[in-house]
């Protein structure tokens, strides 16, 4: 067998993986695009001027009146996309002349998580008025105006952690004081319920496919997605990852009800206003799909996103509330049952996905110099081993 050069993938190898791991059409499109471009140049620093020009070009294609982009500046936060804040002075439809603070969210050359800007755009738009989300304005799905695919949304006020607190990158390791937890936890549950009970069939979600009820198609699409990425990106192989892929396929749950899954529903991905402790915006919808609610429920309870209570014994889901209380509140508010066995399966699935992103894609893109923050991507690889061990424990317990 010929050695495969993953940094210069051949068309035949790309085609073979697409055939081996069928998934949703839009997911296939973005994964194929990144592999076709992988042998190209890495990420080079982009001056703000270039992004401003791209933003102006995109807005010009959508807005007829005169406008002005000003106050452009870099934002940090998040591990996957470039973000630039700016102010748009324009005649906003239905509002009139306005100076609107906005954010450009753009992919680097390759991202730690390769996703579709169109899907992210459609999801945020669908949830306007359902749960707090930033207003979303325009999408450059194929990078026709900007160097890479991007979207523009309104700047939402709020913080991801108390201003005085200390946390790790991407909001991980954030500790919230007990009083704040009491205020945020009910909203955290309520918003998840609203997402899972949302009538997605009435929204424009044309970039999504709906898995069939009463089958394992939903689970299979998910495993195919991440096993494909593991094959495309990993450097050092890991026997436990091979075991996990096999275990997931042998134990796939059937889908009882398709819902919108946020897929990154956790502390660090919502903003809240500090004066009244109100969640003001849910961010990072890029991994969202129409799928199984148990995926979100399992995700929020990951060890990576929580911490121990002050008693040193009780683990708090997303640093907000104990897992049993979280599940009780969810079931009561949604009327949807939580199947512990399916949650367990999705915990393993989520760990498989996370380890793939951290240890396989993280390595591959940093090696290729593909992002604006390779040092962050490399740093985050360190979480992978804790999650691998969590995965191992979960499989042993099953």
């Amino acid at each position, binding site marked *: 067998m010929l050695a495969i050069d993953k940094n210069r993938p051949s068309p035949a190898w790309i085609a073979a993986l697409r055939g081996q791991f069928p998934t949703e059409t839009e997911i296939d499109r973005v994964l194929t695009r990144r592999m076709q471009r992988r042998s190209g140049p890495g990420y080079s620093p982009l001056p703000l001027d270039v992004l401003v020009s791209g933003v102006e070009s995109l807005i010009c294609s959508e807005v007829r009146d005169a406008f002005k982009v000003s106050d452009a*500046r*870099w*934002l*940090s*936060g998040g591990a996957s996309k470039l973000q630039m804040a700016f102010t748009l002075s324009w005649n906003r439809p239905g509002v009139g002349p306005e100076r609107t603070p906005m954010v450009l969210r753009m992919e680097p050359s390759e991202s730690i998580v390769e996703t579709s800007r169109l899907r992210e755009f459609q999801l945020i738009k669908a949830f306007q008025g359902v749960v707090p989300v930033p207003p979303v304005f325009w999408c450059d799905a194929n990078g026709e105006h900007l160097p890479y695919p991007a979207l523009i949304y309104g700047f939402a006020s709020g913080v991801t952690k108390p201003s005085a607190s200390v946390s*790790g*990158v991407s909001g*991980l*390791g954030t500790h919230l004081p007990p009083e704040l937890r009491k205020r945020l936890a009910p909203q955290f549950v309520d918003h998840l319920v609203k997402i899972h009970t949302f009538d997605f069939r009435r929204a424009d979600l044309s970039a999504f496919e709906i898995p069939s009820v009463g089958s394992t198609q939903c689970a299979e699409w998910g495993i195919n997605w991440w096993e494909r990425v593991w094959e495309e990106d990993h450097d*050092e*192989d*890991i*026997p*436990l*990852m*091979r*075991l996990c*892929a*096999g*275990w997931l*396929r*042998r134990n796939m749950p059937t889908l009882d009800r398709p819902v919108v899954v946020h897929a990154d529903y956790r502390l660090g991905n919502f903003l809240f206003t500090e004066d009244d402790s109100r969640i003001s915006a849910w961010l990072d919808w890029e991994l969202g799909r129409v799928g199984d609610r148990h995926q979100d429920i399992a995700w929020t309870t990951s*060890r*990576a996103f*929580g*911490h*121990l209570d002050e008693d040193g014994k009780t*683990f708090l889901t997303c640093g907000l509330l104990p897992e049993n209380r979280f599940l009780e509140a969810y079931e009561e508010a949604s009327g949807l049952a939580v199947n512990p066995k399916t949650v367990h399966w999705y915990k393993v699935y989520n760990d498989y996905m996370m380890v793939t992103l951290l240890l396989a894609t993280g390595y591959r893109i940093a090696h290729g110099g593909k992002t*604006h*923050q390779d*040092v*962050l991507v*490399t*740093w985050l690889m*360190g*979480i992978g*081993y*804790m999650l*691998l*061990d969590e995965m*191992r424990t979960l*499989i*042993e317990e099953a």
Partner: protein
Amino acid sequence: MQMHPALQIQSMMKALTDVVLPAVDPANKLAQEQTRLVLGTLALMAQHLPLRFQFNCDELTRLLKLAGILRQVARGGPQTTVCVDKMALAATSAVGTLERGQAGPAVIEQAVRDMRAVTSQVVRSIYIDGDEAALKQVEGAVLTVSRDQLLRDRSWMLMQGWEPDPQAIPKIQDLLEARAA
């Protein structure tokens, strides 16, 4: 050689802390975050540097143990048989590498990579055409060996601060010394 990487890392960290970081534009959040991440990465490297060879030898020993078990229990169709045979060859080579007292760090690291690859392919093949009884034994062996290795991997990354209960993780020096003893 007087110019030792430990000294070089220490000097780079001091320059970044004393000179570069204070000069980074406070409004440039990306630059602020990345400067601190470079400092953190250098600190992690300083801790890993003197232990990396020992860590890799330790892992290779564990992978060879796993390969020995898989060779005994992995039974199945043609794909499993081919993968087990390849693993056996790689294991023979890796045992020789480990036993050669003068094998350099790069050789040991390559042996670790090779053993990870071949044992992974045996596990993959067992789900394709392995015997049902063999599958259970393979799963048991991988989970057991992974537990020991992942404890070391987590300890290796302890400084980064991800662990919710860091006190529960032994220090990497202690884990590696326990093996040596």
